[in-house]
């Protein structure tokens, strides 16, 4: 009975990722958050090291590793910054897997391989101004015109949206039909350099300021036939498939972030003195930290069980929804208790704790809100 899911190869990979994160990412986070931006070189740097396609097959330009290598990558980034983990996970767990899964050879050559090299940046386009988790209600539409499609509509809260070279997008291609509420939706890889595509607004956010989150506008964008990803009309099913990997990804880097928060809070409680002793020696503080560490340990154990199912090719919708919900809840509780433990220092702009407090809040909203996960679980548990 071994106690870790990782092998020596994973440990070596972890060392590589950690070196890259510690030199190329971590020292710049504060400045990037302040600037509300980060350089595209982050993608190229990760791509050059082969970190953007760890679990993709070699034939598609990936490293041919298992899912545990992706876990290593996401954990190492998640522990220093949720926003950077999010933008990279959009690339590796959201925008690109559907191209591998549903795309043809041309699309893999044109979009996937350069994306895994970090030469092209991708985004995932689901949410619209009037519809978030309720994917079936999207209104952005593509209408056939000869060999082409004419795309009209808008997409909202799109991470990497302002800098993306392509957007893996769900679009309505058929009428809303009560008999088939999930029909009439298709996926496209949208080239953002096409005429009619515009970034209407880069959104100002309370947290995760370094990542660009955009409102996108499509006005008679003419998509070539080869932009259609997978099967026309099967887009809803395809995006539901995509969401599983997305939720796995955010769960993995989310819980890694929560663990880092607990570690740093413990370190702080051991050195910060109050009333003549380190605050970590007060029983109430020590018990609070014990609870935080316990919750993180439990949710990490759950995430690892999901990752194990995922790695074995088991499509565990229920467990993934559980992990996504649990991670969002626990990271938010833990980071708030961390602010409490840091006291005034937890409220100062520009440090890890205050930044993560602002940034972690998205965990309960993005990728399907808490309420949506509960709704999914209720259905899968056969309730109602």
């Amino acid at each position, binding site marked *: 009975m071994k106690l870790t899911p990782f092998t020596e190869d994973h440990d070596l990979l972890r060392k590589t990722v950690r070196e890259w994160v510690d030199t190329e990412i971590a020292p710049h986070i504060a400045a990037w958050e302040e600037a509300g931006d980060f350089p595209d070189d982050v993608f190229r740097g990760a791509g050059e090291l082969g970190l953007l396609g760890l679990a993709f097959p070699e034939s598609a330009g990936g490293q041919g590793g*298992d899912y545990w290598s992706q876990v290593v990558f996401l954990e190492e980034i998640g522990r220093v910054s949720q926003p950077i983990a999010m933008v990279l996970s959009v690339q590796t767990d959201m925008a690109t897997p559907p191209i591998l899964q549903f795309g043809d050879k041309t699309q893999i050559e044109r979009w996937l391989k350069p994306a895994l090299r970090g030469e092209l940046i991708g985004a995932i386009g689901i949410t619209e101004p009037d519809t978030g988790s309720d994917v079936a209600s999207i209104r952005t539409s593509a209408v056939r015109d000869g060999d082409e499609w004419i795309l009209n509509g808008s997409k909202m809260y799109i991470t990497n949206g302002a800098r993306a070279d392509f957007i893996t997008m769900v679009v309505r291609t058929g009428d809303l039909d009560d008999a088939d509420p999930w029909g009439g939706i298709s996926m496209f890889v949208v080239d953002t350099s096409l005429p009619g595509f515009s970034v209407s607004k880069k959104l100002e956010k309370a947290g995760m300021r370094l990542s660009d989150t955009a409102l996108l506008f499509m006005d008679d964008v003419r998509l070539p036939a080869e932009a259609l990803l997978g099967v026309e009309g099967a887009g809803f099913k395809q995006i539901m498939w995509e969401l599983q990997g997305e939720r796995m990804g955010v769960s993995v880097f989310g819980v890694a972030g929560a663990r880092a928060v607990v570690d740093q809070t413990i370190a702080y409680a051991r050195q910060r003195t109050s009333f003549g002793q380190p605050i970590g020696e007060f029983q109430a503080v020590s018990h609070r930290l014990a609870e935080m560490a316990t919750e993180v340990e439990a949710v990490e154990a759950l995430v690892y*069980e999901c990752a194990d199912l995922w790695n074995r090719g088991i499509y565990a919708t229920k467990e993934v929804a559980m992990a996504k919900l649990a991670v969002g809840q626990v990271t938010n509780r833990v980071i708030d208790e961390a602010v409490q433990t840091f006291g005034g220092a937890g409220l100062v702009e520009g440090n890890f704790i205050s930044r993560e407090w602002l940034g972690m809040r998205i965990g309960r909203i993005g990728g399907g809100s808490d309420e949506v996960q509960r709704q999914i679980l209720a259905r899968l548990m056969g309730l109602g």
Partner: protein
Amino acid sequence: MSGLDPIFGEEHEVYRQTVRRFVEFEINPFAETWEQARDYPRELFTKAATASLFGAKFDEMWGGTGPDYAAEAVVVEELSRSLTFGTASDLGAHSQLASLYISRFGDDDQRERYLRRSISGEAIGALGVTEPGAGSDVNNVRTRATRDGGEWVLNGSKVFITNGSWANYVVVAARTSDDPGHDNLTLFIVDEDSHGFTRNRMRMIAWHTSHTGELFFDDVRVPDSNRLGDVGSGFRQIMNNFQWERVVLSLSALALAELSLETAISYARDRSAFGRPVIQFQVWQHRFADLAVLVRASKALTYRALRYHIAAEQGLPVARDELVRVTAMAKLHSQRLAWRVADECVQVHGGAGALMEYPAQRFWRDARVGPIGGGTDDIMRNVIAKSLGLGAA
């Protein structure tokens, strides 16, 4: 190979069916009667032994079928899903505490006399550590053993001893020295018919069928051949065994939590309010979803702890402080949760939640023992904090 090692193999699933059948045929049909009578026949122990429910941890030399701690986890999970948790607690204390102590710390003569008969269900065992003035604070045990030639003379009392009121033997922790430190406790095996040994059954609000007892030792003479391990080694023996006990309590609480959640969901389907089944209200669906997530996470944590124990039993290198920490985390996380789930189970029953004819109130009462027994929640937090370098210097 990467990935998580599975804990249970096919042979364990087969064994699970065996234990499940035992619960289905030998326990559950009588559960309501036993709960009302606050008692059950002690033949259940021999029946359980016949179904080989006591041997999984132990070597064949003593009548066991192991050692296989994954199989033991199966026994714990399935027995704890029975409709009479107090009965499962008796069976558990016999096997997980008394028998295990004899197996781990006894010599072959003691194993022959006590372990073999425990595995066969002929003898019921109990472990006596807790006292009126010493619960989780084991170092404060006052029961005293004084050497007198080839015998020891025990004086003192014990409380909350599961199986205490009917056990054939009790493993008793007694003070053998007043030196400071952790070398002043020693374990002794006290036979039921020892002169000066008296006991009462305690009436509790939970675990109604359990034979939880209060024990009194008035100049009880114990032969030195019934001393378990070296003089002064008791504290370490107890601390050592706490680890497995906490995993057992976690597995057990989560089995009860799952049973409570299933019962709650099933009742919510049957009961109507405002013209529709309660299950159709979104708040209840979401509440059940939240509870299911918590139980699943708690189980993942408990299985993580179980993996540490199985690895340690297999002789693999295991970081002791990690085993202790993860085990305490599992215990802390699971016990309140089981009670919380049982409380929601009472809630969904409405007025019927208070009725003795429904099992909901029983799950709720029985689960309440969890955050207290086997080391309270606060003790777990102390243990975890200490392992994180926190707490009193």
